Each structure stands twice: as structure tokens, then as C-alpha cells.
């Protein structure tokens, strides 16, 4: 496929051109990491549907587009404007990234505990922070061919959030990472990279939101690594609210030590072509993961969620629920992998995927993938695909709800199981509003609301 090869080359030449400006260049470990990653990407190229993990997601529309690196500009974005965007007024410490670059003038750091390090990854790379060498790129594997997007992100290691939450800190307010893409004359890409280290016994809620302003295609390729030390409680929310012309590929990689409780709420509402990988490694006894997902797509949107719960130690629990709502000609993919390593006895893993198809043209491909090497485990999985219940629809209408309201209420009811798991009330309430704005057909998220 000549076109694919060309675009692959395009990113290689972007790399060659940008390399001298990457932050922290000259540190041996970092140069080596970037070099290895670009080599892996050069070998693998963009994934094709021949790869098992990419079977239902064809990235040709992405690889055919001549993306240019997004310029580090603010494009008139002010705190005022930001406040009007979805979740823009959430009571949180806020780090804002515009076209992948940290925008200090738009960020705020209220309510952070003493000893917390919260800031730009680029700055930390420049200053040669020793924690980076220890952790960056150690969790999100970029070597296998089906991880080419992670390789690409790692090669271009540049900016994003670097958070270090000290031992025992209890954060009352969430930390909100906002990634805004502003439009340019030609299609641009940005590759946010986040590293989040949570010290033993700490408790924190994190939110990543992805948004696009303006028209036309752009490409976000994000990687977040989270290291949850012993006995931590980490709630991670990701709200993908990109414009419907956007390509969005993201990997969340979490490693949990003993007794760590990690929750991921992965919400996908925007984007034209979306691929989410959520991987957790339960790497300490007694650790627990909850993986919650909600994806809503319409028109010609394509949303692929791949999750992996890797049980590496005994007595760990992973509970997963992904729910999809697909309308129009939208296509959804869910692939839920559970690996139980040989010594991971007493593993308790549950996985469910429930889908609601609102139209004839909408499709879902759902697949569990269980690899179990221990014998004393409990693993269950199930998937359902259904339509709106006509009896319920009639019941609501007979009480006076017009058809669109009745339909939306039923979808809301369907999504409720996921929504009610969100402990940050303000987040949940605003997500409900976004969801309903979207269901009622608004094109964009929350502008000028």
C-alpha cells in the first residue's frame, strides 16, 4: 500500500526535522528511548487490519492525511473562553495544553498538597528530572507491531503533564488535564504524553478531557502512564470530546502495586476515528481495578475500545463494564482482554459489554479475549447487543413524553449504570448534560453554553 508507506515516511521525516528541538535532548537515556521508539515505528508502520488487535479498525483515512506538526499557539484562547468549554468551570487544579503544549497562562494550581509536583513534562525533561528516567516509557510498551501509535508518541516525546503526588496525600479536588486542539489551515497532529506517579497511600482523582476548536481534521495521539504505588486510590476519568472530524488514538497504561485501587472511566463522545487502549497491570497482591467505559457514536463515527486487565499477582480483582450507544452508521468495537498469569491465583475478573443499537446501520463488534494460566480463578464475561425497548418507549409516550424525549430518557437510563459509578458529582452532572446535548443532535460540545 503505497499511500500508507508514504504517510509512514511523512512521520519519519517530521521526526528527523523536529528531533533537534525535542526537550531534554542530549540525555543518553532519552535519546536512546526516542531512537528505539522511532525504529520500532519505522519497522512496523501504521497498523493494518491484518493485525489481530486492529482487525475492525482501519486507520487508512488517518494515514492518508498529510498531517503537519501542530504549532504551539494559543489562537486567542483565554481563560474566559476556556471557562465556557465543557468542564471548563470544574472545581479543580487545571493544566491546559493547547496543540499539545503546556499553556501556563491558562492553567491554575489551586488546592494541591505540599510536595506535589504538577506541571509540564517538557519542563521536567529539560531540567533532567531523575524520576523521568526511572519511569517514562517503562510501562506503555511500544515494541510490538500493534503498538505503533505508542511508538510514534514515544519517539516524539515532547509535552504533556508530569504529576507526582506525594505519599499519603489526599487530594480534595480533582486534577484536570485539558487538551485543546485549535484548527489550522492544514491538518495537524499533536502527541500529548502524561506521566503520573502516585505515592503510597495517596488518593487522587484525575480527569483528562480532549477537545477540538474549529473545523477540519486533526490528529491526537496521546499516551498516559500512571504508576499507582501501594495502597493508593486513583480515579481516572477520560472524556474524549473531540470534534467529529478528529482522529483520536490514546493509550492509558496503569501499573498497580499492592492494595492499589484504580478506577478508569473512559468516556468517548467525539471523534471521527477513535481508538482507545486501556491497559492495567495488577502487579501487587490485593490490587483492584474497575474499568468503566461509555462510548456514544453517531453518523459515520468509528470508536474502538481495547482493554487489557493483566493479572500478574494473586488475589487481585478487575471489574469491567463498557457500554456503547450507536446510532446512524456508527461503528463500535469492543475487545476486552484478561490475562491471568500462572501465579495469579484467586484472581477475580468480571467483564461486561452492553450495547444499544439505535439504528439499522449501526454496528458493534464485541469480543472477550481470555488467557488464563492459573487454575484457581474466577473469570466471567458477557456481552449484549440490543435495541430500545418498544414497550418502554410506548409507556413513556403514553405518559406524554414526546418521542425524542422518551428515546433520550431510555438512553440515559441505559447509560446510568456507568454514570452513577462516577464519584465526582460535578463531573457526572456535566457529563449527563453533554450526553443529552449530543443525543439531541448538537454538533459541538458546549461552546458558548
Amino acid at each position, binding site marked *: 500500500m503505497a499511500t500508507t508507506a508514504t504517510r509512514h515516511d511523512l512521520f519519519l521525516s517530521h521526526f528527523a526535522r523536529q528531533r533537534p528541538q525535542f526537550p531534554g535532548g542530549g540525555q543518553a537515556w532519552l535519546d536512546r528511548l526516542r531512537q528505539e521508539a522511532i525504529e520500532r515505528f519505522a519497522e512496523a508502520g501504521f497498523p493494518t487490519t491484518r493485525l489481530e488487535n486492529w482487525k475492525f479498525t482501519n486507520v487508512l483515512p488517518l494515514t492518508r492525511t498529510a498531517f503537519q506538526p501542530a504549532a504551539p499557539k494559543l489562537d486567542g484562547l483565554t481563560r474566559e473562553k476556556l471557562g465556557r468549554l465543557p468542564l471548563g468551570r470544574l472545581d479543580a487544579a487545571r493544566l491546559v495544553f493547547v496543540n499539545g503544549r503546556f499553556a501556563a497562562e491558562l492553567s491554575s494550581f489551586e488546592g494541591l498538597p505540599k510536595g506535589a509536583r504538577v506541571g509540564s513534562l517538557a519542563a521536567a525533561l529539560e531540567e533532567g528530572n531523575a524520576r523521568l528516567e526511572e519511569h517514562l516509557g517503562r510501562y506503555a510498551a511500544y515494541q510490538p507491531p500493534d503498538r505503533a501509535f505508542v511508538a510514534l508518541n514515544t519517539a516524539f516525546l515532547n509535552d504533556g503533564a508530569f504529576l507526582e503526588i506525594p505519599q499519603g496525600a489526599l487530594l480534595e479536588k480533582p486534577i484536570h488535564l485539558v487538551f485543546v486542539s485549535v484548527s489550522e489551515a492544514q491538518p495537524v497532529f499533536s502527541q500529548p504524553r502524561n506521566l503520573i506517579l502516585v505515592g503510597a497511600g495517596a488518593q487522587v482523582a484525575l480527569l483528562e478531557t480532549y477537545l477540538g476548536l474549529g473545523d477540519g481534521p486533526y490528529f491526537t495521539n496521546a499516551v498516559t502512564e500512571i504508576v499507582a504505588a501501594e495502597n493508593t486510590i486513583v480515579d481516572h476519568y477520560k472524556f474524549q470530546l473531540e470534534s467529529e472530524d478528529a482522529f483520536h488514538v490514546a493509550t492509558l497504561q496503569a501499573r498497580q502495586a499492592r492494595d492499589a485501587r484504580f478506577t478508569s472511566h473512559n468516556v468517548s463522545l467525539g471523534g471521527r476515528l477513535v481508538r482507545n487502549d486501556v491497559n492495567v497491570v495488577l502487579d501487587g497482591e490485593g490490587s483492584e481495578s474497575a474499568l468503566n467505559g461509555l462510548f456514544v457514536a453517531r453518523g459515520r463515527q468509528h470508536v474502538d475500545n481495547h482493554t487489557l486487565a493483566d493479572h500478574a499477582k494473586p488475589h487481585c480483582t478487575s471489574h469491567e463494564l463498557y457500554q456503547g450507544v450507536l446510532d446512524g452508521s456508527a461503528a463500535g468495537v469492543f475487545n476486552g482482554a484478561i490475562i491471568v498469569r500462572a501465579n495469579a491465583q484467586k484472581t477475580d475478573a468480571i467483564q461486561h459489554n452492553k450495547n444499544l443499537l439505535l439504528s439499522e446501520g449501526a454496528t458493534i463488534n464485541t469480543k472477550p479475549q481470555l488467557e488464563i494460566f492459573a487454575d484457581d480463578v474466577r473469570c466471567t464475561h458477557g456481552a449484549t447487543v440490543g435495541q430500545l425497548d418498544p414497550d418502554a418507549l410506548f409507556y413513556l409516550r*403514553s405518559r*406524554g*413524553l*414526546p418521542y425524542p424525549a422518551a428515546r433520550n430518557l431510555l438512553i440515559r*437510563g441505559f447509560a446510568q*449504570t456507568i454514570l452513577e459509578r462516577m464519584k465526582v458529582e460535578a463531573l457526572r452532572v456535566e457529563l449527563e448534560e453533554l450526553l443529552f446535548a449530543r443525543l439531541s443532535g448538537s454538533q459541538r460540545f458546549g461552546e458558548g453554553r
Partner: protein
Amino acid sequence: MLTIKNLHARAEGKGILRGVDLEIRKGEVHALMGPNGSGKSTLAQVLAGRDVYEVSQGEVLYDGRNLLEMTPEERAHAGLFMAFQYPVEIPGVSNLYFLRSALNSLRKARGQPELDAMDFLHIAKQKAREFGLDESLLKRSVNQGFSGGEKKRNEVYQMAVLEPRLAILDETDSGLDIDALKIVANGVNALRHPDRAILLITHYQRVLNYVTPDYVHVLYNGRIARSGDKNLALHLEEQGYAWVEGQAPERPQVAGS
């Protein structure tokens, strides 16, 4: 208020209603009885606008409007309410939120201002007390995990909040203990008004001790086979439907229908 003329309806190719005639005027309470499978629920559902039933003949006028051309929500906006024989469970939607949406839809359609959550809560709680609905049921998902009796009470409760002009109750009294039955009867009686009307579908004379009907009809094989006053219900209770069968004059087949 409601005029049903020669109504025929079928589902999945099977004729169920086969020429129903019924006239209900303002202020009246009608009881509709009839054996299992005679078409009582089908009639109620057709009147509420359920589209699985195909009306093949006949007409229904509601306040002079062609009811059959209206959507289910338009019927509700015009004051029609049907208490379901089998109320539907709706996971993830709270009873309170559902009922506020319903009431506000009716208010909006009638050009009245919508009620905010606080104002509605006030009404909702007051009616819950009045109509014997456990307040804890308000916060739960609509009908989900409700007992049979709770579901029926919830229907009466919705009726009390929505204050319809024409209420059709499909076996709302079935399977209730005497206390619950009194609550249902209370709900129906509270609704009685010179401008409103009620169609009470039931198998049992019992409820009619608390709600005195102006008329009693027997639906048999998709037709009103008998009509009378409240004594007809007592008679049925003693004689059973076999009596109707014996008495009912065979309706002459209309040529070409």
C-alpha cells in the same frame, strides 16, 4: 367525550377486536368486564395508541377529534391516561424524574409553565402521601423490582399526579389486598368530576363496591356483548360468562366485511 364505532383491530394477522361500539360521556364511570383473552387490554392499548395493533375498521372520536390519528403523546396531552395491566420496568430512570418529565410535557403542550424540581417534589410527595405510595419508590427506577401491588399503586399514583380527563384502568385492581384496593378506589373516586370520565377494566365485582359505575359492559370475543347498570356486574359474579355466551345474540355477519 369518547365515541367508539364498530372498532376492529388485529395483531399479527389475528383479529382481536371485532366491532366494538361504546359511548362514554363526561362525568361517567364505565366498567368493562369480560373473560380472559376477550380483548379488553387490546381495546385499552388501541385507545392509548399502541402501534402493534392494526385498526382495520371503525373509528374513535375523542372530544370530536379522530383519536386514531393522534400519536400516543398527543393523546396524553389531550388528557388521556391508561393504567397498564402490566406496567413496564425502565432501568436507570428514576420514578420521580420520569413523572416530572411527563407532567412537564403535558404542561408544555397546554401552554403552562414547566415545574422545577423543587416545586414538583412538593406535589409528588403530597400525592404520594395521599395515594399510599411509599416515598422510597419515588427515587427508584420506574417499576424496577417493584412488587405487583407496588406497580399497580404506582400507576394510580401517576394518574393522580397527571390528572387525566379520561382514565382507562386496565385491571389495576387485580391481585391487590383489600387495603391496596381501597387506595386504587380512592384514586379513581378522587378523579371523578363532571368534566372527566373513567373506564375501569376489571374481572371482579369487588372493586365496584368502592367505585360505583354508571354502566357495566361485557366484552366477549372482541365485541360488547352486553351492557347494563351496576347490577350486571353482580349478575356476572353469580352466573359467570357462560351466561353471556348463552344470552348473547349472534351478531349477523355483515356481507362483504
